[in-house]
């Protein structure tokens, strides 16, 4: 698929860039779910990464590579803090999800009122000159650059998460998800395990945010750390299959073209709101008929055909 990149025209490159952005974010969101931690505030980690990367590069004059690492670190620290508070005070389940919303909304309001990063007016990156730009130095470029960049980080995140899930930490996260008290009675350090999984998830989301900010060229708190994007990033993994490693990627390939396609259809027909109706109906249908998601169903189907 990635090798076909240069052969695709820029429409498909842009669409697949979005597919891989949501696949990547879905992978990071799903990682937290492996420990039973429902994040409804992933926009916070995305947004912190995006703002830090953009501000340290544009205002601070740092290399975007350094800035993106700083962004990831800031997101990871924010994630660790939320996980620590949640773990220390036994905030579990839905209450933990509310905690993530609270922090994400708090940050959004702060950024809305923080003049240094442009407040509600937004933070804008200077346009680049495509003739002199060197994408590997600026981490910015045309549609092909961003397409390849998101394919690469998605592949990287996939293999990293696969390795983590096969390690002792992966077992611990699944144990906590199954029964936290039983896991602790067997010596699973619940607090440390949770802080670690959220830190990794948030740090990765920060990297995705940094690149996404460069892709957008402008950052607004409402769109990059608001509730809407926090919800958008969890639709692909839910549709693809929560808890399955490959699910978020499959889900993104389903959800993003559906979102874009229904947008185009709605505009062509001049029917405002048709896009969300189609989108909502299809998502509802998938959740009703494939509650485990698409990917686990495909795996079962293939396994049944083989045997």
């Amino acid at each position, binding site marked *: 698929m990635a090798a076909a990149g240069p052969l695709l025209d820029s429409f498909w490159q842009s669409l697949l860039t979005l597919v891989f952005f949501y696949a990547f974010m879905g992978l990071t969101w799903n990682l937290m779910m492996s420990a039973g931690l429902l994040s409804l505030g992933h926009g916070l980690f995305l947004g912190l990464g995006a703002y830090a990367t953009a501000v340290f590069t544009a205002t601070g004059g740092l290399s975007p590579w350094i800035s993106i690492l700083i962004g990831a670190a800031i997101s990871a620290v924010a994630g660790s803090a939320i996980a620590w508070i949640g773990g220390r005070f036994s905030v579990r389940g839905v209450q933990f999800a509310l905690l993530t919303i609270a922090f994400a909304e708090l940050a959004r309001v702060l950024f809305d009122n923080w003049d240094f990063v442009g407040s509600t007016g937004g933070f804008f990156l200077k346009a680049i000159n495509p003739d002199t730009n060197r994408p590997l130095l600026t981490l910015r470029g045309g549609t092909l650059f961003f397409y390849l960049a998101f394919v690469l980080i998605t592949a990287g995140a996939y293999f990293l998460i696969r390795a983590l899930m096969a390690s002792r930490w992966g077992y*611990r996260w*699944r144990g906590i998800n199954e029964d936290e*008290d039983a896991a602790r*009675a*067997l010596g*699973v*350090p619940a607090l440390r395990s949770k802080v670690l999984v959220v830190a990794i998830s948030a740090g990765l989301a920060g990297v995705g945010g940094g690149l996404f900010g460069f892709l957008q060229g402008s950052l607004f708190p409402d769109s990059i750390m608001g509730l809407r994007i926090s919800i958008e990033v969890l639709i692909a993994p839910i549709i693809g299959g929560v808890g399955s490693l490959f699910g978020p990627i499959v889900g993104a390939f389903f959800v993003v073209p559906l979102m874009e396609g229904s947008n185009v259809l709605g505009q062509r027909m001049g029917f405002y709101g048709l896009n969300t109706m189609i989108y909502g109906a299809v998502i509802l249908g998938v959740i009703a008929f494939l509650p485990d998601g698409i990917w686990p169903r495909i795996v079962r189907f293939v396994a049944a055909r083989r045997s």
Partner: protein
Amino acid sequence: MMLQVRDLTKAFRGLVAVRDVSFDVAEREIVALIGPNGAGKTTCFNLIAGALRPTSGSVSLNGENLTGLAPEQIALRGLVRTFQIVRPMVGLTVLENVMMGAFARISNVNEAASVAKQAIMRIGLQDKADALAGDLTLPDRKMLELARAIATEPRLLLLDEVMAGLRSSESDRIVEIIQELRGGGMTVLLIEHVMRVVMSLADRVIVLHHGEKLAEGAPADIGSNPKVIESYLGKKATLA
């Protein structure tokens, strides 16, 4: 003394579930905690294993004070408990469940799997190693609970009614396993209602009643103790 419990007290609002309970468990000893329902046995376990914080009193293991430590910190010091109402991780396989215990000592996944397999063999669940824990029958779930605790390689094992609901052949098997474990150097504190098991297995018996220690002694002495017969065993009790 391996385990020292001193003046352990737990009050839930007004209700005192455990009051001033003190006892010791020596290394390689098998001690049974008995008493009628509601006597405070499981609360005692929860206090010792760190699932509950005592209102007052202390617990120490090999001279180290455990009071106030988190359950996982206590487990990592070699004091591991099973739950009376078994808590299998239903979405994981039997092997994965037992590996969760092995990870207390071992960080390498392959080594943890081999330690877990040994514990599964010992318990006799090897045919079901790849089954989901959620698909097991209740006796198998009890066996899994035991295997998981053994895989942590504890120095002191707390067993909360592992034999309740089992057929006598199954509980005989567990009695054998517990004796083997003791032979290997493990110390065991168990809550048990099956008096036949208590009498044959325990070196010493502690009787709780209304949250207080009523008696303590060798199984035979406990069986003939008038206070114990009155409050727990019943007047016509016959002991095997």
